[in-house]
């Protein structure tokens, strides 16, 4: 029942005791807690903070998503250019990279491999998508992403296969549209 709160300005730092977070060399018995997806979400935004593509691999309400994106955009944009690409954020790690005018930002679990997350971002940008696509062809940007990641995990590691899949889908789309256009020849209204 004693009031055990510490006085506000006392600094309770001690020599860092990282042992309890260390690699367990004689590790605890029992299974580790279940992993969540490798990638929790992926966001793209401009230097002005305008959001582009957002892919969420965890279920969140619209309100939560807005809050997260607002916070994250602020945090990332506040960083100076030469800073490292990783930020600790709540219980996640944020990995981000800037390509031209766009920030690519993804969230991974705290214990995950940040360097491979960087590779994922790199692959997505260079392998498949360019900035203009993301702005003017946002559907395509999503389609390409969905060939590369699925359910928050890496799905395909061959650039060639990803592009081939898009090609095939585009082809199928063209075919069906042609089918319908040849059958339905009403007045065309520009939409």
């Amino acid at each position, binding site marked *: *029942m004693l009031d*055990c709160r510490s*006085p506000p300005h006392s600094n309770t730092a001690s020599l860092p005791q990282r042992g309890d977070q260390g690699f367990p060399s004689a590790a605890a018995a029992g299974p580790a807690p279940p992993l969540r997806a490798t990638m929790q979400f992926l966001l793209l935004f401009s230097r002005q903070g305008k959001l582009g593509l957002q892919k969420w691999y965890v279920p969140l309400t619209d309100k939560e998503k807005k809050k997260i994106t607002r916070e994250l955009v602020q945090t990332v944009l506040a960083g100076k250019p030469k800073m*490292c690409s990783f930020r600790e954020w709540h219980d996640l790690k944020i990995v981000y990279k800037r390509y031209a005018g766009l920030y690519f930002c993804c969230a991974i679990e705290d214990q995950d491999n940040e*360097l491979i997350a960087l590779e994922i971002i790199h692959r997505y940008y260079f392998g498949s998508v360019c900035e203009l696509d993301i702005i003017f062809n946002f559907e395509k940007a999503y389609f390409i992403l969905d060939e590369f990641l699925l359910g928050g995990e890496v799905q395909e590691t061959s650039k060639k296969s990803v592009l081939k899949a898009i090609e095939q889908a585009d082809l199928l789309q063209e075919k*069906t549209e042609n089918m319908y256009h040849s059958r339905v020849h009403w007045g065309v209204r520009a939409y």
Partner: protein
Amino acid sequence: MVAPSLKLQDLIEEIRGAKTQAQEREVIQKECAHIRASFRDGDPLHRHRQLAKLLYVHMLGYPAHFGQMECLKLIASPRFTDKRVGYLGAMLLLDERQDAHLLITNSIKNDLSQGIQPVQGLALCTLSTMGSAEMCQDLATEVEKLLLQPSPYVRKKAILTAVHIIRKVPELSNIFLPSCAQLLHERHHGVLLGTITLITELCERSPAALRHFRKVVPQLVKILRTLVTTGYSTEHSISGVSDPFLQVQILRLLRILGRNHEESSEAMNDLLAQVATNTDTSRNAGNAVLFETVLTIMDIHSAAGLRVLAVNILGRFLLNSDKNIRYVALMSLLRLVQSDHSAVQRHRPTVVDCLKETDASLSRRALELSLALVNSSNVRAMTRELQAFLESCPIDLRADCASGILLAAERFAPTKRWHMDTILHVLITAGTYVRDDAVANLTQLIAGAQELHAYSVRRLYSALAEDISQQPLVQVAAWCIGEYGDLLLEGNCEETEPLQVEEEEVLALLEKVLQSHMSLPATRGYALTALMKLSTRLRGNNKRIRQVVSIYGSCLDVELQQRAVEYNTLFRKYDHMRAAILEKMPLVERGGPQVGEEAKESKEAAKLSEAAPVPTEPQASKLLDLLDLLDGPSEDAQHPLPLDPSPGGALVQLLDLPCAPPAPAPIPTLKVFEREGVQLNLSFIRPPGTPALLLITVTVTNSSGGDVTHFICQAAVPKSFQLQLQAPSGDTVPAWGGLPITQLFRILNPNKAPLRLKLRLTYNHFGQPVQEIFEVNNVPVETWQ
């Protein structure tokens, strides 16, 4: 006639052309009206285009929920164009919180069984992105059927969808487990990658699955070995590293399988060594694989040599020009510094270099790691580096750096003088950032080292003369000058430069501190007390001191006023006792010898006894009060602790520290009084090293609906005891569990007589005055035996 709605491209152009937020909103609102209208009665052929526009608008942050039903219609349409946009819309607009989401389950089921690959792909993708538990239940068997289909395109997606299903509904794991063995023979990288992810998920969720899959360790080793050795496939390689994503995933699975399992760990040792030594490290891709290898090595039962190799890899990472790699190395080394201390020590110089990092998140890690690496053989060198860092480090790291240096100094100081110099340097450089107990520690240190008194007082005097703004420094200096002022004036000390100090100068300096607006109330208290002590240390007449003391008798600060009045009284009425009272302080006892880990324990114990100093000679109670004031830094009342004014609270907080074992077995708390929701509890502490001392913390709580006010607690003990009551934290306990009152009693029981305690409480409750007198009978025997 309504203006025609725009094509998607035109809409995008117009939005981007909008100069203000208001303009953008206008364009979008206009367009949304069109979209709504067309959803109502528009041509189903063009529905997908309308939805596409809506999705774009949604991406910009505008509401789009009215498009949800359209997604369902589009998904159900036979046209691929419609499905493509419809499924995309479902992933963006629908989630498991809306009931509507279940309506696409049937469409997905149909699409999965139709055999058109792009369509199956869309369905699987959507299911794995937003599939709820119910959807997963309904569709699990469909997905399972696709696992062994001929097309790798569909298979790889089905596998990852299975991963999602298991995450949502773990009980369905059994459906997917059997196919794994066969899938592991795949050569298609995408399918293989998915399979490994699936197996990983299964193993993480079930110990039985983990045991089951241990038998594939040799197979995994073979796959990874083939990847690493059979060079280069342009399709999957990045910067000369074969499919780093697949490598990393395999390494993760190996880690999980090898953890805590000798046999599996052994089976992978060679491979890990091979990957660790052969991976190209010129680009990030290779380093990502290397990093994962290190993580795996450290987590399984690896050979000692392999662990050292891993630490060395991290050490090399620290020298990498890529900041990200250095960051990752620092984080990992921090996690290893306890378990693999000597291996990490070898990289100490590199770690220390990282203190110079410009990125704060790196320098912070470097600081933590550096502090963890200090030991008795490197303490001098490390302290030098850390002190240099302290002078220039960013402000938010100052506090940690300062405390770190002080702690390291306390643990490993080679000599007392070095220790003193170090603390002094920290106080001068970063005085405002040190912990509250730094003052107490330093005064304790100085008091205990008689040979250092002259040296200390000179150095502190010089430091004070230069700068009176750093409060901890000022406090220690004032205390020291008060205690050892005579040594200051003597003039001779070999270890410092000769310093000629006049009495008047000393007094002037203390007065300056007293009057400075930079001085905290506590600091001024120190200065006043020091002046008073000097009245017996200096040879000159005390006119100046008496003047100051009498002026402060009308100071607005109650604490200072009280002191001044008491000192005045000492001059006027008790002058014959003044010298005795103001004698040099006896040393407060601390715990045993400071050696490594025991040092920490005894340090905590010492803090306990320090916070409650024992007057070594019994005195009349009035003089006891005066002695309390003169106890200087050990007196907690001088440190403003707004949230926790009771020293008892601070003591318990110290006991709560995870690294301090409770040195005495904790004595059970005793509830002694309860009336209408007002409760009084006693907790007892017997600090080790002072067997006659008992500290009782009285806590008054109030769970009733009325405030308790004007609370006073008085106590009486048998004659053989001595009782001291400290000021309570307050006299009010707000209703409904408001902040309790705490009060510390100090009881000296040199005869170890059975403790008897009588309490008298008076307070107001529910508008009525209450008085209670009672004896506490059932004190635990540990309090006095």
